[in-house]
């Protein structure tokens, strides 16, 4: 079989075969999905290709999308999810929206009713293309088999280039059954208006350099773009050369090692007090591949009021969207930074560094980690997980308090090693994403930190983990509440805990029933040893950590407040030592 396929060596194939042939040419070796009436031909053809492509049967299509997303984030490749028409396709939606918000490269292939039935409300027909238009980077319905291969080629190209994102391909069943000579096009056929790379102009670069060279109190804001563009080296060089502190967004974690002396930590609603202060007091912000989400800006009108702002992003629609900037550059971060670096002077900002250290000292004494307590707090678990894994785990989170705790206390030194639903904040993401990540071939232990609420949204994936013998570990932080919502009720709704207490099954019985190795920890002294034991176990494990129910995530910027108006952890009695910082 020829790799590129020239017309002379073609053979007739069905649309269903063509799908797999194309995936193989895109170097796909794992797909996540669920069969049904409208994609039966694709699944039937899979039998022939099962030595080249491994199919993971998730227990819900949403989780097929999350797994493809987790695989993509962990591997840097395009994740592939499949579903049948109607309910299968609509089940994908939450997973696709999650990937879209976080710029994750993904191709979703849905079956559709036959062309003749399109628009007739046939059994399991849904207008998935129409539904997905606002949720995908692009979407296709293939109604002409001659366009099938080219469409798949284009979909992969679109998913991974420029600002990555999910692409939908909807294929009517009769197109899957039709036959045609198969040729995989050598080049994509995406419209020329789609131009994923633009070079920064000389004058833009000069202006960037001037602003950086003149700044006294600069801060770099490092977002997901640092990871997507692979710009860690350039970013780190900039931070070192011009002595600029780097604050990271949730998805930017790992873009610069947390232990790097210029990395000051995580910004935003639950970011470091000192980090937010630095941003507010800065005279220059250099925003790199981030999008000024409301979770990192606080109240827009009061955001970093005295700074000049540089914004570099590959997506021009992000420039001047939320924050009006002085220089907005459209471009690939790695390119732009490496072009700007020679123009930037080596300098020191000692006073600024000292000021930030001062803020850090102020707030670190209020850190939960400095609390002398026999109780088990979620933050203690995450801190100990960091220690036990030597900071070297591939971390996956669900959404809630535990997610913020991971961002705060799992000091991440490695790129692409924190998988979390940032933009959409999708509960239930953790377990299926971890399963997906286990196919990425990373030589790291995988830990999914999840809440008792979130895990119950996608807990059925335990069966998938067992069926695949996926090497994942689940750290379930069980506080008996939908913790993050309970926190808001405590802060803003006078402790009316409306529908946030949540009961759980006996997780050890459940792990037994599903066939995972299960553990329960109630005391801090057992945390590290149990983590090490679980990690040594081959196959999926779950540790239930029974933690303090009423714990809060601090510090916090309430919505509508300025970024530096943070609610700090109250110091009560003698619960805090006066530890050195």
């Amino acid at each position: 079989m020829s790799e590129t396929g020239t017309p002379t060596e073609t053979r007739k194939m069905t649309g269903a075969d063509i799908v797999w042939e194309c995936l193989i040419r895109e170097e796909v070796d794992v797909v996540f999905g669920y069969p049904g009436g409208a994609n039966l031909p694709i699944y039937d053809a899979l039998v022939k290709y099962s030595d080249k492509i491994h199919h993971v049967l998730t227990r819900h299509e949403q989780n097929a999308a999350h797994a493809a997303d987790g695989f993509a984030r962990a591997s840097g490749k395009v994740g592939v999810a499949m579903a049948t028409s109607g309910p299968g396709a609509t089940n994908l939606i939450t997973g696709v929206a999650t990937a879209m918000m976080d710029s994750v490269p993904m191709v979703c292939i849905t079956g559709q009713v036959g062309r003749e039935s399109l628009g007739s409300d046939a059994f399991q027909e849904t207008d998935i293309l129409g539904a997905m238009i606002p949720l995908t980077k692009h979407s296709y319905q293939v109604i002409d088999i001659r366009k099938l291969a080219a469409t798949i080629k284009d979909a992969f190209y679109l998913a991974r280039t420029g600002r990555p994102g999910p692409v939908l391909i909807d294929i009517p069943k009769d197109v899957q059954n039709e036959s045609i000579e198969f040729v995989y096009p050598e080049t994509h056929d995406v419209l020329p208006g789609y131009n994923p790379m633009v070079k920064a102009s000389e004058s833009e670069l000069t202006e960037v350099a001037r602003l950086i060279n003149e700044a006294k109190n600069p801060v770099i804001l490092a977002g997901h773009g640092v990871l997507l563009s692979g710009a860690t080296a350039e970013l780190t060089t900039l931070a070192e050369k011009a002595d600029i502190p780097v604050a990271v967004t949730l998805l930017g974690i790992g873009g610069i090692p947390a232990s790097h002396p210029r990395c000051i930590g995580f910004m935003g609603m639950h970011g470091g007090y000192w980090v937010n202060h630095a941003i507010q007091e800065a005279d220059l912000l250099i925003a790199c591949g981030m999008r000024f989400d409301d979770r990192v800006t606080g109240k827009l009108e009061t955001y970093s009021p005295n700074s000049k702002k540089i914004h570099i992003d590959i997506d021009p629609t992000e420039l001047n969207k939320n924050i009006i900037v002085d220089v907005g550059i459209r471009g690939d971060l790695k390119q732009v930074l490496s072009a700007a670096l020679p123009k930037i002077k080596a300098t020191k900002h000692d006073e600024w560094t000292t000021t930030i250290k001062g803020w850090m000292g102020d707030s670190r004494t209020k850190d939960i980690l400095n609390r002398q307590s026999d109780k088990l707090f979620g933050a203690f678990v995450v801190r100990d997980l960091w220690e036990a894994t030597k900071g070297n785990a591939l971390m996956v989170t669900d959404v809630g308090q535990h997610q913020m705790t991971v961002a705060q206390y799992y000091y991440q030194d490695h790129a692409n090693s924190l998988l979390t639903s940032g933009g959409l904040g999708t509960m239930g993401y953790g377990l299926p994403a971890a399963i997906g990540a286990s196919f990425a071939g990373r030589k790291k232990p995988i830990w999914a930190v999840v809440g008792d609420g979130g895990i119950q949204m996608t807990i059925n994936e335990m069966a998938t983990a067992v069926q695949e013998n996926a090497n994942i570990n689940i750290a379930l932080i069980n506080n008996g509440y939908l913790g993050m919502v309970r926190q808001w009720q405590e802060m803003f709704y006078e402790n009316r805990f409306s529908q946030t207490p949540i009961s759980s099954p006996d997780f050890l019985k459940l792990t037994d029933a599903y066939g995972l190795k299960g553990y329960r920890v109630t005391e801090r002294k057992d945390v590290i040893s149990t983590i090490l034991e679980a990690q040594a176990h081959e196959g999926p494990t779950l540790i239930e950590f029974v933690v303090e129910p009423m714990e809060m995530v601090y510090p916090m910027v309430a919505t509508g407040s300025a970024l530096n108006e943070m609610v700090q952890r109250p110091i009560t009695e003698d619960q805090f030592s006066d530890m050195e910082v």
Partner: protein
Amino acid sequence: MQKTEHTIVAFVEDEPGVLNRIVSMLRRRNFNIKSMVAGATESPGISRITIVTDESNQHRRVNMARNIQKLVNAYTVEDVTDVPAVIREYMLAKVSVTNGDRVKLDLLTRDYGAKIIDSEEGAVIIEATGYDMEMESFLQKLKEYDIVELMRTGKMAMRRGSHLELKAKIEMMTTDQQWTTKQIQSAIS
């Protein structure tokens, strides 16, 4: 003078669903549209869309154009508000008339270069086209009569002069298979 209306011209692929994508994006991002006219162009496979917006914030307007350009089906998008351009609208108005009105109405339509294109018992259909001030003033005058039906197309825009760069760009985009690749290479090198 601060303009209250801005005109954007987009060249997009003539494919089913493309308008849907544009409108879906405009709605989702809350861009306010006064009119939108789409139609065929000199190049087969390319539609031309004129969008008039009263979005007052300049950053939002730039963002709107960029969001249209970001759609994978778009060739190129330009804001023609501040460049010399012909901006025209077409209108049909059905006016009920008595015999006495008819003479005055003939004069009025002639004044505005409009035409009575249909005349039946009691009602005429007037066809008019022009730039916005002209149309508004004509409409004001018409209101003295009994307007039974009115249909305005929304505005179409075309830059004055030969403006060959645009033509050349689109031609290159449509004929040169390697156009994007070259753009990317020049960005990386």
